[in-house]
């Protein structure tokens, strides 16, 4: 290989490394974000109720009605 070819090869490899690191960085960030959001809701759910479904809300009402005098 002559000098010119080696330089082209190095540039191409550099682009390859940059592209690969860009893709892997995006994936890692989204995984970390997911983990963070899961852990936050995990802590909160110990004290607060999500009460998302109608049945959840009805149960919450049922329990709370007992505190009405």
């Amino acid at each position, binding site marked *: 290989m002559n000098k010119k070819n080696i330089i082209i090869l190095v540039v191409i490899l550099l682009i390859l490394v940059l*592209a*690969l690191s860009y893709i892997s960085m995006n994936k890692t960030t989204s995984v970390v974000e997911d983990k963070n959001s899961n852990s936050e809701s995990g802590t909160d759910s110990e*004290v*607060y109720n999500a009460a998302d479904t109608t049945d959840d809300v009805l149960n919450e*009402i049922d329990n709370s009605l007992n505190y009405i005098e």
Partner: protein
Amino acid sequence: MNKITYFSGFLALVLISSVIAAGSSASDKIENNFKIDKKLEETNKKSDNEKRKMREKCEEYENRKERIKCRLDYIKENKENFEALYNKIPESCRNLDFENRGKCVSFYQKSQACYEKNGIEKNKCFKRIANFAKANLKDEKEGKNQKARDYVILLLYDIQEKVEEAIKNQKIDAEKGSDIINKITEIKEDILSGKTKNEIKPKFAELKELLKKLKSSIDKKNE
């Protein structure tokens, strides 16, 4: 250049173009969705004046259940929330005395922001509006009665929102929906007028029964 250089160049090109393609296809999707939404919006568009007349008509009914059904018909037809006229007070506040009516209206207005939230955030918001000092009612030291009343009212509004959303999505008809919302309004009135849990609980049991029937009819339709 030798074969290795050509191969590496080809690989780099494939990688770069896939990164660019992923980005551009996402933006294309957003743009297409936006175009479809705009088209739908134009087709369904009724003039503001027509909508205002429809909303005004709902207030002309003497009977509460008819007023509620009229509002649900509006939601079904226009696929949008029923924005009450500026001088109209929420149904459950209407039969209260002057002082309590004012409190009821301001409580209703304060709570509106909670319904834009979901899950735990919505629950936190309800508890904040109901003046909870702790996360659970059982841990509250003072004013459990009032806090429970306020919290139950907010939860009942939440069920009402779910029913209205189901009507908007054509899952239930306005007649069945109005039975449920009328019952919810009755319970809210009882809570606001200071009735005891023994007076409220039978009505809540009726509400649960109505919702159960509705759920089984939706399940049958889906079979």
